[in-house]
């Protein structure tokens, strides 16, 4: 039977088991929308801005292991979506973005709502396609899903001109696909794994440093077993929080620019480092020259060969899926009679405990103003540490990462790589869609939330009972912090003047709004909000304006060059 390109597009989504598509209609995708209308297997979520569609598909994917799908129209639909696509690309999130394009004969003619979608998105996708012939549509869709989910995951974009959605052909969806130019190495090299295990067993001051790759590859259980079997300290990056339980005594806190004192000291001082699905990012290790130590051996497991020895030279590189490699390592260690030197390990742990005594995350609990850290701690208590927490970007993001202890993977959803303000709310929509009964909170600030505030309307339409925890300090807090530290207190354009009344704003969108101004009211307000299971509640916490995120490594400095709260 002959199907049109629009029908084929929807059939492909059905074949892939896609449950939700996040999108926004427009001229070039009208045929596709018409086919969406005629079926009920694939549900569509109408956002209020294309950036929101991509972030929602992203949050959907991050919280569920499933692939996110977004659908937008040509021209401005695409350019609005670019921020979302770049966000997903930087954090390696599997996603397929379907974009409408002007008809093939109009391409290059500066047609209405035309843009060079493939050209504009090329640097921020894993791969992209322009489908010029309807006969290639089904196989291209198959390739897109295959590429997005295998190897190092990432967003793949399929650009479909309007005439291709009208043209008809026989529909055959390929069961499997292979590309001669795409064969990621997925199985770790046995010899290298053996070498790595030997190094670990001989380590005197070991450190296990893991990132988002562990979460993306669902390797949390393997990681947890390995860390416990070896008795080593473990840190998770901002992207990896929850892959090893945050409440476990072997967890030393996050590393990096706003990481804990003990973790950063241990990262610098260890003699054997096992890096798993992490990429020695500038926000994690600071200056690579300062990080370098001749006597430290580094093992690096990653699916992407280009992540290995990019910023830091490693001694034992292992390319492969981290879950499989960790499984192999576990087998080798379990079958070996050798164990790490207990005396050395004991001495190392007592050194770490010594560092922990700095109590680097302490803050003024007696303050008459609401401390943002206190709000996060209460949020943690009231949600029993079991909520999905999305965040925007800035101080609130760091406080959420520091004070909410994530025990499970895929519970902490944030834009780590690109650092996209406006991510939190639409991401929370995707999270709530795929986890309808779960508690979902978006930790944000008064600056970030306004970047995608229009999605409050989407939340109303789909009855998404998200709890928005707005840490409102009337400043772009992280910008203000840098200006205070490094720009002589010249707060250039970081004060958020003319803020809306968030309570009234929430009510205008049909939600519940609460304003909290005293520390004594924090707990009650949170309890009240989370008791309203059916409603979105916007909690506007008026927090201490002068609060800063500590510890802090100034940009370009080394891991041990931290500024601690007490030193100011």
């Amino acid at each position, binding site marked *: 039977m002959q199907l049109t390109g629009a029908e084929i597009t929807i059939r492909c989504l059905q074949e892939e088991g896609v449950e939700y598509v996040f999108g926004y209609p427009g001229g070039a995708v009208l045929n596709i929308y018409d086919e969406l209308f005629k079926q009920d297997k694939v549900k569509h979520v109408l956002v209020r801005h294309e950036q929101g569609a991509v972030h929602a598909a992203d949050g959907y994917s991050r919280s569920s292991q499933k692939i996110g799908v977004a659908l937008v129209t040509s021209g401005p639909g695409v350019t609005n979506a670019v921020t979302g696509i770049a966000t997903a690309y930087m954090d390696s999130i599997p996603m397929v973005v379907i974009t409408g394009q002007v008809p093939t004969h109009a391409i290059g003619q500066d047609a209405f709502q035309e843009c060079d979608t*493939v*050209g504009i998105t*090329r*640097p921020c996708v*894993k*791969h992209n396609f*322009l489908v010029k012939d309807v006969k290639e549509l089904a196989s291209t869709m198959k390739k897109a899903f295959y*590429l997005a989910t295998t190897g190092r995951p990432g967003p793949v974009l399929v650009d479909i001109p309007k005439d291709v959605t009208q043209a008809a052909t026989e529909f055959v969806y390929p069961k499997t696909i292979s*590309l*001669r*130019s*795409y064969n990621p190495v997925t199985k770790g090299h046995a010899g290298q794994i053996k070498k790595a295990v030997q190094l670990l067993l001989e380590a005197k001051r070991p450190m296990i440093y893991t990132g988002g790759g562990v979460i993306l590859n669902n390797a949390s259980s393997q990681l947890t077993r390995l860390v416990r079997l070896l008795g080593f300290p473990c840190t998770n990056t901002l992207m990896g929080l929850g892959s090893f339980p945050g409440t476990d005594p072997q967890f030393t806190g996050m590393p990096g620019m706003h990481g804990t004192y003990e973790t950063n000291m241990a990262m610098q001082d260890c003699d054997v480092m096992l890096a798993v699905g992490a990429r020695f990012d500038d926000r994690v290790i600071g200056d690579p020259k300062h990080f370098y130590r001749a006597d430290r051996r580094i093992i690096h497991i990653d699916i*992407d*060969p*280009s992540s290995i*020895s*990019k910023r830091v030279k490693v001694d034992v590189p292992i390319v492969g899926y981290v879950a499989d490699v960790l499984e192999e390592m576990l087998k080798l260690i379990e079958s070996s009679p050798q164990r790490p030197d207990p005396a050395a390990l004991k001495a190392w742990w007592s050194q770490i405990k010594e560092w922990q005594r700095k109590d680097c995350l302490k803050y003024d609990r007696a303050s008459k103003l609401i401390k943002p850290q206190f709000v996060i701690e209460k949020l943690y208590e009231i949600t029993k540490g079991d909520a999905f927490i999305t965040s925007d970007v800035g101080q609130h993001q760091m406080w959420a990462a520091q004070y909410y202890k994530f025990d499970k993977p895929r519970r902490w959803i944030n834009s780590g790589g690109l650092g996209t303000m406006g991510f939190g709310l639409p991401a929370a929509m995707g999270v709530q869609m795929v986890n309808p009964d779960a508690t979902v909170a978006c930790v944000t600030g008064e600056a970030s939330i306004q970047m995608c505030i229009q999605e409050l309307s989407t939340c109303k339409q789909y009855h998404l009972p998200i709890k928005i925890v707005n840490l409102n300090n009337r400043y772009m807090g992280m910008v203000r912090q840098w200006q205070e530290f490094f720009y002589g207190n010249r707060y250039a354009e970081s004060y958020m003047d003319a803020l809306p009344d968030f309570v009234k704003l929430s009510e205008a969108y049909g939600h519940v709004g609460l304003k909290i101004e005293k520390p004594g009211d924090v707990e009650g307000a949170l309890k009240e909000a989370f008791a309203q299971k059916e409603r979105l509640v916007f909690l506007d916490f008026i927090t201490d304006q002068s609060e800063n995120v500590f510890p802090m490594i100034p940009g370009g400095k080394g891991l041990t060059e931290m500024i601690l709260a007490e030193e100011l």
Partner: protein
Amino acid sequence: MRHILSILVENESGALSRVSGLFSARGYNIESLTVAPTEDPTMSRMTIVTEGSDDVIEQITKQLNKLVEVVKVVDLTEGNHIERELMLVKVRAAGKERDEMKRLADIFRGRILDVTDKSYTIELTGPGEKLDAFLGAIEPGVILETVRTGASGIGRGERILRV
């Protein structure tokens, strides 16, 4: 150090911009880039001459391999190889200069492809340094126009690059 990378890519529109975009986005140098289809029409072969430390070249190779349309990457400078470039140069050739120019072209095994009473157009093939040497040997003032293809390279002996 100067490296010559030979790259097999899918012969698809966009493959070239993916490769060149990678170089500009990551701040790598391109000294020259040539591309044309191979005996297999579904595939093109690129030769990129680039400059960089071993670490940089390692990253370039890894990043190129990551591009979905790149089938294979080889650094020719890792082994024995042949490098050739074609240059067309139009020079002023009038009066006494005319004979001298002909002699110089012969010495460099160049061929004169086009002649007017005031100019020669000379074809010259060889490694980049040879073409540079030719240009160095003639008066800069007599060069009217030059066009160079950039280097193409191939491994010596049994060493081949194919899928």
